[in-house]
C-alpha cells in the first residue's frame, strides 16, 4: 500500500530524513517510532504530499507523491500533530467542510458526518465551537476529520498526545478498530502504545532508519542471548557473594552472571545463557540444593523501551564515530 524508497528531505543546513526505505502492506498498522526531532513528522508530511521529497520516491496506493499528488491526497486521511481545526467553527460544520474538501457531497456527506461523529465519540459536541472544546475532544475531532472520506490510508501524527489515560485507551481501541479496512501509519514516542496497537514498527533516529520489523521479532532480535533474573536469599548467616556467583556460573549453559544488587542477605543476579539453552530449571535446582532461598526467578525480557534506547544509542554512537573520523584530515 505504501512504498517508500530512499526517501530524503534536505533543508538548507540539515538533512531531516536520510534515505529511508520501507513498505507497508494493506490493512496493517505500523508504528513510526523515534525520539523527538528524529524526522517522523517530516516523513509523514512527505507521504501526505505536504512536503516534496528532496530525493527518493514514495508511493501511496500505487501513486507517486510527486507525480500524482491529487490521487494520493484523495486516498489519504491525515491527522497532523496539532489537530487542524478552526476555533470559530462548530464541530459538525467543520466536519462537513472537511468532507466537502475531500469531495463528498449531498446525502453521502451528511451520512459520513454522522458516522464519524459516532465513531469518534464527538456526537455530543456537534453544535459546540471547536475553540471551546477540551484537548481530548479536539484530538478526536481531528481523528474524525481524518477518516471522514473513508480513506485507504490513514496517517496519524501522535494521535494520543495530550490525552488522559482513559482517552488514550479509547483512542487506541478506535485506531485498532479502524485497521483492516484502512492501512494506518501512526507516529509516537510512547513505546507501550506501539506494543499494544501496532503489528509492525519502524524506528528512525536522526533521520535514519534504525530498524523495521514486527514487534515480536524486534524484541527477540534485541534480546540476543536469553537472560534470567534470579534473586537469592540466605536465611541464617550472611551471603557470600563470590561463592554464590561461582555456583551459578557452574550451571551448564550459563555464560555470564552479573550481580545487580545486594541488600543484607539478599542478592539479585542477572544470568545470561547461551542462545537456545533453557537454564531456569537448572538454576532453581542449584539454588535449592545449596540451601538458599529462591525469592524470584523470571526471564528478563527486554521491553520495547530498552530495545529502542539500545538501537537509537548504537546508531548515534556509530554516527559520532564516523563524524569524528570525517573531521580528521
Amino acid at each position: 500500500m505504501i512504498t517508500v524508497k530512499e526517501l530524503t528531505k534536505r533543508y538548507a543546513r540539515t538533512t531531516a530524513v536520510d534515505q529511508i526505505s520501507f513498505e507497508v502492506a494493506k490493512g496493517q498498522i505500523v508504528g513510526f517510532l523515534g525520539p523527538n526531532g528524529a524526522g517522523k513528522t517530516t516523513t509523514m508530511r512527505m507521504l501526505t504530499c505536504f512536503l516534496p521529497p528532496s530525493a527518493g520516491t514514495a508511493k501511496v496506493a500505487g501513486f507517486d507523491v510527486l507525480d500524482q499528488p491529487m490521487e494520493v491526497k484523495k486516498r489519504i486521511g491525515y491527522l497532523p500533530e496539532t489537530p487542524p481545526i478552526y476555533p470559530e467553527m462548530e464541530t459538525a460544520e467543520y466536519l462537513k467542510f472537511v468532507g466537502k474538501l475531500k469531495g463528498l457531497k449531498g446525502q453521502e456527506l451528511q451520512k459520513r458526518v454522522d458516522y464519524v461523529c459516532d465513531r469518534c465519540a464527538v456526537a455530543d459536541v456537534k453544535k459546540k465551537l471547536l475553540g471551546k472544546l477540551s484537548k481530548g475532544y479536539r484530538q478526536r475531532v481531528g481523528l474524525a476529520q481524518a477518516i471522514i472520506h473513508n480513506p485507504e490510508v490513514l496517517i496519524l501524527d501522535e494521535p494520543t498526545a495530550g490525552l488522559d489515560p482513559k482517552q488514550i485507551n479509547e483512542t487506541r481501541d478506535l485506531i485498532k478498530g479502524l485497521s483492516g479496512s484502512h492501512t494506518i501509519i501512526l507516529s509516537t514516542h510512547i513505546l507501550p502504545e506501539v506494543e499494544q496497537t501496532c503489528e509492525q514498527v519502524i524506528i528512525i533516529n536522526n533521520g535514519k532508519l534504525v530498524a523495521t520489523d514486527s514487534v515480536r521479532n524486534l524484541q527477540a532480535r534485541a534480546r540476543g542471548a536469553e537472560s534470567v533474573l534470579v534473586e537469592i536469599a540466605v536465611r541464617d548467616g550472611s551471603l557470600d557473594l563470590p561463592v554464590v556467583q561461582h555456583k551459578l556460573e557452574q550451571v551448564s549453559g550459563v555464560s555470564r552472571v552479573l550481580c545487580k544488587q545486594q541488600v543484607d542477605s539478599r542478592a539479585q543476579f542477572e544470568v545470561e545463557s547461551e542462545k537456545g539453552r533453557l537454564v531456569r530449571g537448572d538454576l532453581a535446582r542449584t539454588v535449592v540444593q545449596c540451601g538458599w532461598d529462591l525469592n524470584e526467578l523470571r526471564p528478563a525480557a527486554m521491553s520495547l523501551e530498552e530495545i529502542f534506547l539500545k538501537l537509537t544509542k548504537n546508531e548515534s554512537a556509530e554516527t559520532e564515530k564516523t563524524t569524528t573520523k570525517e573531521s580528521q584530515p
Partner: protein
Amino acid sequence: MRNAWIICRKELGSYFVSPVAYLLLTMFGLIFGFFFWNALAYFVVEGMEMQMRGQTFPMNLNEDIIRPLLSNVGVVGLFFIPMITMRLFAEEKRTGTIELLATSPIRDLEIIVGKWLAAMVLYGCLLLFTALNFAFLFKYGNPDWKPLAVGYLGLLLQAGALLAIGTFISTLTKNQIIAGAATFGVCLLLWVLGWVSGYERATWARVLSYISVVTHFESFDRGVIDSKDAVFYVTVIFVGLFFTARSLESLRWRS
C-alpha cells in the same frame, strides 16, 4: 471551481462569525456616514447661498457629491483592505490548518481564489453601506445612476487589485500583525506614488504615477470605463494571485 466556492464560504463564515466583519462594517459605516453627511451639508449650504446671491448655476449631485465621495471610498478602503486580508493565510499558517488544506485533494489555485473571493465579498458588503447613503440621493434628488455604477465597478476592481496584493503578503508570514502592517504600507505607497505627477513630467514620474492604483480610478470616477485602466487592475489581480500561488508553493519547498 466548486472547491474555490467551498473555501470562499468557509472564509465568509470566519469573517461573519468572528467580530471582524461587524467591526469593519461598523467603522466603515461611521466613517463613510460622516463623509456623506459632510458633503451633503456643504452641498445644501452652497445651494442656499447661491440662491440668495441670485445665481442659478446648475448644481449636480453626481459632480458635487457622488464623484468626490466615491474617490474618498477608494482612499478609506486602503485602510480597510489590510484588515480584510491579513488573516487569510497568516492565520492558517499559525494554527497549522494550512496542512489540512494542503493535504486535501484541491489545487492551490482554488484555495487562493476562494480566499480572495471571500475578501472581495466582504469588501462588497462595505460598499453596500455606501449604497445605503446614496439611496437617499435617489429618493430626494435625481442623480444619474450610470456614472455611479461605473464608479462602483472601478472601486471593486481597485479593491480586487489591492486585496490580491494583501493575499500575497499574508502568505509570507505567520504573524497577522506583520501581514497587516506590510499590506497597509504597500497600499499607502501605491496611493501616494501618484502624487509625483503633480509637479514632474519626466518618464520616471509617469511610470510611478502609472503604478499608483489611485490614478487608474480617476476615469471610473468620471463615469468612463477606460479599458487601459480596467486592464491595469485586472493585471494586478492576476499578478497578485500568481505570486500568491508561487509563494504557497515555495512554502512547501522551504518549510
